[in-house]
């Protein structure tokens, strides 16, 4: 089998150009999907019979929460590839993921709190899903902290890769442990209200939003990856050609 296409990913200029070519292919569909889903979700979808218009924050909240975990998985996979095959570009991908993942996690927490205040009457409850999300935010912050604390780039790459892999092994255990902790401490809370399955005109914008956010993540990742590759290769000749 011909592995040239794979080895090409190890070459920063190739990845830089590929990222530049691919960015619009993700950014435009993401923009169109998000705008359409916003129109569908905020204007076309009927208000919820219990929550009124308040439920509409789900169109930002759910995609952020979904992406927060996915970004961690992407980051840990890229870190593992970088560690195993010593691929510098993979480390650059992992480094670019961290900030995006932390932002999505924070966005899901903040939108959840904004929704929780009018619906539950409180900004915060010690619900397993909220705690797991908070721990995920700490994992992202720890990863960013470790990366920024080590000056040597190669060492920072590999040390943070080990941390990302340790984190991804621990994430399921943390999730189940907080669920167990809460299910014993607290009676089922407001979160457990029996929710009728969403009608199609509510669900369709949500699915579009999920896809739109995922594509948006890919586009942002590619832009950040280009910046990261340029920063890492700032001494190289090809960067001078690209920048000038």
């Amino acid at each position, binding site marked *: 089998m011909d592995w040239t296409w794979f080895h090409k990913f190890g070459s920063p200029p190739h990845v830089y150009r590929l990222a530049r070519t691919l960015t619009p292919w993700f950014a435009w569909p993401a923009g169109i999907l998000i705008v359409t889903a916003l129109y569908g979700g905020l204007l076309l979808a009927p208000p919820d019979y219990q929550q009124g218009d308040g439920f509409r924050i789900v169109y930002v909240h759910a995609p952020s929460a979904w992406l927060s975990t996915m970004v961690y998985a992407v980051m840990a996979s890229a870190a593992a590839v970088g*560690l195993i095959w010593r691929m510098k570009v993979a480390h650059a991908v992992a480094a670019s993921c961290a900030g995006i993942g932390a932002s999505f996690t924070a966005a899901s927490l903040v939108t959840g709190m904004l929704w929780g205040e009018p619906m539950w009457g409180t900004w915060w409850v010690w619900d397993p899903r909220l705690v797991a999300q908070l*721990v995920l935010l*700490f*994992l992202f*912050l*720890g990863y960013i*902290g*470790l990366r920024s*604390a*080590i000056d040597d780039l*190669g*060492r920072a790459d*590999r*040390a943070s890769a*080990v*941390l990302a*892999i*340790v*984190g991804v*092994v*621990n994430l399921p*255990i*943390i999730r*189940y*442990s*907080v669920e*167990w*902790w809460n299910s*014993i401490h607290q009676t089922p809370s407001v979160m457990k209200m029996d929710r009728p399955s969403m009608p199609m005109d509510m669900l369709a914008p949500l699915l579009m939003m999920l896809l739109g956010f995922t594509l948006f993540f890919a586009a942002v990742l590619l832009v950040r990856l280009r910046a990261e590759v340029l920063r890492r290769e700032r001494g190289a000749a090809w960067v001078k050609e690209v920048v000038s």
Partner: protein
Amino acid sequence: MIGAALAVLARDLRLALRRPGQVLQPLAFFAVVTVLFPLGYTPELDKLRQIAPGVLWVAALLASLLSLESLFREDAQDGTLEQMLLAGQPLAALALAKTAAHWLLTGLPLTLMAPVLGIALGVPGSAMPGILSSLALGTVTLSLVGAVGAALTLGVRRGGVLLGLLTLPLTVPTLVFGARATELAIAGEGLSGALYLLAALAVFAVTLAPLAVAAALRIGSE
């Protein structure tokens, strides 16, 4: 391999016992943190008994973490770590031996001291076996998870704060199951389920954490 690991274990124990002050520090820290709660919250034993599981576990967690910061530091400074890397023995086994020494010098004393502090928090005597067994299992996991963090932050600026940020989220399961086991022990209920989960975490950590420690040490000394 086992001989080398035992040699490392014996060496670490001997070094620590020549400076007993360092062994006592985490214990003193554990006691001080626990004493702060009656002062800051309430001296009523009935109320303290309710928060005793959380207080004991968080204080033990912090004491264990505090002592982990220096787990590899001295060896890295005086070149012992490099010799271990070159020794031709599996680094994971040596790392496990060092962590075992740390547990014997910190985790085990913390466990043995917990009942005394438990009495100060109004914990009934019948709960002591439960507290001892849950902390004995839990501190194994804490030592191993903390060793990963200590190896990653070796030689890093402001490593202590960073060690906390890296390690504490990963200790959530141990804290949850450990505090739950202690709570059940105080309430006089069966706690075997929580102990099994703590034991599972400890086995999991003993199996995988030394590999992560070894990888982190290799990266740190490149």
